[in-house]
Structure formats: structure tokens, C-alpha cells
């Protein structure tokens, strides 16, 4: 209970911090006039997007790790980030003036990547992982080709998006929060089966899990969540890889704890990273993906050392 209390307290503190800091400080509990406009129209949506996207990425990471039986798996391991990036740049090339072009392109690209991976899903975890890694290399090559062809004025937008951009999400905040809640609920419903899958596919099957069905459900769920996250915020690495491990170290390996802790912890990490990214060299912003690693890596390594 103490650990959950600490996690929720840290989340509340980070939420308040995210609302309070920016180009100017404010008390989020007593904002009036211009401050209230900034708070409600700018900071609150951004804080909520960071929380929801971080949580979704961490959930997808936890699922992919179990699905592929590989602790190095993360939401982009099967090439979805590459295909989404290629889609986003394609959108930018076709409709350079449109505010929605990159998001739409990313969403379409993410699903093209997912469908490509699905073709290999029946081959089992290790071959699917291999196919995903090869597809990721393919999408990277396509992305490099598109970037070489992209007019110079589009390059900055493309790179900013590829390093993670929470400054303007084209996915409405309520949709992201609803997706966070639905994803967590679905995950919790599957949690006992996921625990059994930690023992390996044969043990899980022998313990009554319909492994084929579970793998299909997990793949769709994790892929949909990844596609939504990429569409909302570009590609943000590290959160999906490390947060589930961090939460296993703190809360143990059972998914009834790992999933909610990851959904909260991922949100917390991205929120903290984004708050730092937009304030540390204000009015300029750092790419949030860089900050997630700079904050998360030392925390993770320290915990790893302490737990032996």
C-alpha cells in the first residue's frame, strides 16, 4: 500500500508541477484571468496528453514484452514507429500546409506497419519478433528515402515529430484518456492469463490459457495503443521499454499490479520529462524523447543495482 501511495503522491505532485511551471509560474489551484486561460487551454491539455500517452506506451511495452517473451521488447519493436514516421512524412509531403497531415499520415502508417506484422503473427513469438525487426529496418530505409526527398522547410517539422512532440496533439484529450482507461481495463481482464504466459506458452496452455487467442488479442491491443500514441505525440522511445521493468522491480511481476502501475508510472515519467523539456531552456523546448531517457535511465539503473 505504501508503494501505491508513493506512486499516486508522485503523480499528483507531477501533475501540479506540470500545471504550475512554464514560461511563467502560477498557482494552479488559484489561477484567475490570463493565468486561468493558460492553465485550462494550454497546460492542462498538454499535461493530460503527456500522462495518457506515457501510460499507453508503458502498457503497450508491458504487453509486447509478455507477448514476445522478450524483456527487450517495446512498443516500436515490430516497426510500428518506423511505418508511422514514414506515414507522417508522406502526409507532410502531400499536404505540407495541413495541420492534420502528419497525424493522419502517422495513423495510416502505423496501421500499415501493424498489418504487415500481423501477416507473421502465426509464426510464433520469436519469428514474429525477427520479422518485426526486419520490417523496422525496411521502414527506416523508406523513412530515410522520404526525408531525402522532403523539401527543406518540412525537415524541421518532421524531425521534431520523430523525437516526440506533445506541444500539439491532433487526438482530442478525452479520446486519449478514454483509451488509457479502456486499455488498462482490457489489460486487467487479461492479467491472470498474462501471468501464466510468463511461464512460457506450453505451461500457459497446460494451465488453461487459449494462447493463440490471447496472443491475437494482445497483438491487436498493443498495436492499437501504439498507433494511437504515435499519432498523438510522435515517436517517444524509452517509456515503453523501461517503465514496465521499473514497475516489476517495485511492484512484483503479477500483471494485476504491473499494468496499473505501468499505466500510472508511464504517465508520470512522460509528464515529468515533458515538463522539464518545455521549461529547462524556455521559451525554447527540448525534444521530450531525449528527456524521457535522461530522467528514466539513472532511476532505472539505480533501482536495478539496489535490487541486485
Amino acid at each position, binding site marked *: 500500500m505504501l508503494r501505491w501511495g508513493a506512486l499516486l503522491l508522485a503523480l499528483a505532485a507531477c501533475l501540479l508541477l506540470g500545471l504550475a511551471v512554464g514560461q511563467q509560474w502560477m498557482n494552479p489551484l488559484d489561477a484567475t484571468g490570463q493565468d486561468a486561460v493558460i492553465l485550462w487551454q494550454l497546460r492542462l491539455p498538454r499535461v493530460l496528453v503527456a500522462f495518457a500517452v506515457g501510460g499507453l506506451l508503458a502498457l503497450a511495452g508491458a504487453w509486447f*514484452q*509478455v507477448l514476445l*517473451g*522478450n*524483456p527487450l521488447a517495446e512498443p516500436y519493436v515490430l516497426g510500428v514507429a518506423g511505418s508511422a514516421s514514414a506515414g507522417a512524412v508522406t502526409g507532410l509531403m502531400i499536404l505540407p500546409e495541413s495541420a492534420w497531415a502528419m497525424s493522419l499520415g502517422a495513423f495510416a502508417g502505423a496501421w500499415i506497419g501493424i498489418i504487415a506484422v500481423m501477416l507473421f503473427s502465426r509464426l510464433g513469438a520469436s519469428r514474429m519478433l525477427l520479422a518485426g525487426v526486419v520490417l523496422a529496418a525496411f521502414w527506416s530505409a523508406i523513412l530515410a528515402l522520404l526525408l531525402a526527398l522532403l523539401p527543406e522547410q518540412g525537415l524541421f517539422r518532421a524531425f521534431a515529430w520523430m523525437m516526440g512532440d506533445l506541444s500539439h496533439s491532433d487526438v482530442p484529450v478525452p479520446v486519449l484518456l478514454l483509451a488509457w482507461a479502456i486499455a488498462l481495463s482490457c489489460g486487467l481482464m487479461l492479467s491472470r492469463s498474462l*501471468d*501464466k504466459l*510468463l*511461464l*512460457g506458452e*506450453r*505451461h500457459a*496452455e*497446460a*494451465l*488453461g*490459457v*487459449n494462447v493463440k487467442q490471447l496472443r491475437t488479442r494482445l497483438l491487436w491491443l498493443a498495436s492499437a495503443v501504439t498507433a494511437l500514441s504515435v499519432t498523438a505525440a510522435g515517436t517517444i522511445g524509452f517509456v515503453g521499454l523501461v517503465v514496465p521493468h521499473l514497475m*516489476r*522491480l517495485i511492484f*512484483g*511481476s*503479477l500483471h494485476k499490479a504491473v499494468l496499473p502501475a505501468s499505466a500510472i508510472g508511464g504517465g508520470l515519467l512522460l509528464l515529468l520529462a515533458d515538463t522539464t523539456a518545455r521549461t529547462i531552456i524556455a521559451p525554447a523546448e527540448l525534444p521530450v524523447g531525449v528527456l524521457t531517457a535522461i530522467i528514466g535511465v539513472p532511476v532505472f539503473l539505480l533501482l536495478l543495482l539496489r535490487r541486485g
Partner: protein
Amino acid sequence: MSARMQLTDVSIRRGDRVLLSQLSCELHAGEITVVLGPNGAGKSSLLLAIARLIEASGSITLAGRPLANFSRHELTGQISWQGELPPTEFGLTVQQRLELAGTDAKDEIESVATGMDINHLLSRPLGQLSSGERQRTELAALMLRDTPLWLLDEPTAHLDLKHQIQCIEMLKSQRDKGRTIITVLHDLQQAMAIADHLILIDGRGGAEHGEAAGLFDPARMTALFSASLRQQGALLVPDYGEKT
């Protein structure tokens, strides 16, 4: 608790290779059947086929009902399988591993863990255990599964002498309680100590089965394993030659 199992013309293939061809036999409740044969012959595959974890042709019935007609859930209530050691990457503890076997009852887990000498390891992650301790954890997980049929794949592997004896005693005691047990073993002495029934798989598709007493003879075992054996009293032991 009763599990009469009938195998009729069961064949198992791995790729192009026929591991087992048209095995037919009947196994009764309260019997231990030991599966013997050389590496790669298909012993583990036979257990997996009986647990319906891999495909096999032919017919397998449990208490007169074809296995194919059991739902996965129903099958879980009838058959327990102890096979390869589970992976350790995700930090499951011994306690959590045992809970996944099907019970959250702390008393029951502690009692079984004490019986397997792993009570002091309950809070340890599986990755911090030796292979023998992990094997004892798997045997404890099996003991928590109160199903009429147990399938064990080399249950004494990784175990020291004390725990090998403990494992064999445990299997005998479960047999005496009426459980049907099919186990793969490599140690002939252990097999002779507990087998009521033998299935001998030669790795070329052929299989023999029958009462253990009738099948334990030096010529048959030497041919099965392509290894030199000798009679030592009532026992068949590997012939390692003279000490040089």
C-alpha cells in the same frame, strides 16, 4: 479420482520425421507408466500429445471420452503437465509461480513447499534459484494441481540424490492415492523402482508397451538405448567398464 486412458493408433510427426507410429495402449488409474527411450525419440512429444499441447493423429480417450472433445478448461481439470523449466526473465517469485498453478491458499502452498524443501525460497525470484531448486518448484506446482492424470517429463532431472529419492517416493505415494502417472525417465533404477507399465520408444517410429516386469531385460534395454548394460542383482545398470 479415476483416469483410464486409451491410446489408439497414436502417431506423432516432427516435420518430415515420424517419431511415433501407431502406438496403442491402455493405462489404468493408480498406475505409473514410465516412458523410456533414447534422446530425441519422442518421449516428451508423447506427453505433449497426451496433454493436447501438440498435434497427434489417432485417438486418445480419457475415461472413455475423446480428448479432442474436452475444452481447454476441462482438460486443465483433468491433466497436469510438468515439462521444461519456465523462463526467469520477468522476475516471478517461487510463491507467485506456485499461485499460478491454481491456488492462492497460503496454507496449501506452504505445506507443499515444505514437502519439497523450498519453503525458505518462497519470496525468491525464480532466476535466483539453482536448476534443482527450480525443478523442485515445478514439482511443488504439480502437487498443487489435483488432477487425476499427471504427466511428468524427467521429474528427477537437476535433482540431487536426496531429492531424487524424495521425488520417486512422492510419485509412489501419489500412485497409491489412485493418481494415474505417466513419466519420462532416463534412470533405469528409478524406472524399475516405480514402473507398473512401460512404453519403450525407439526413435524410429516403433514403440513397445506392456507390464514393466516383462520388459525390463538386458537385451531389450541394450537394443533400445544402443548402450551396454549389465545385470547387477535384480537391477540393470549401465556398464561403464572397469576403473582404470
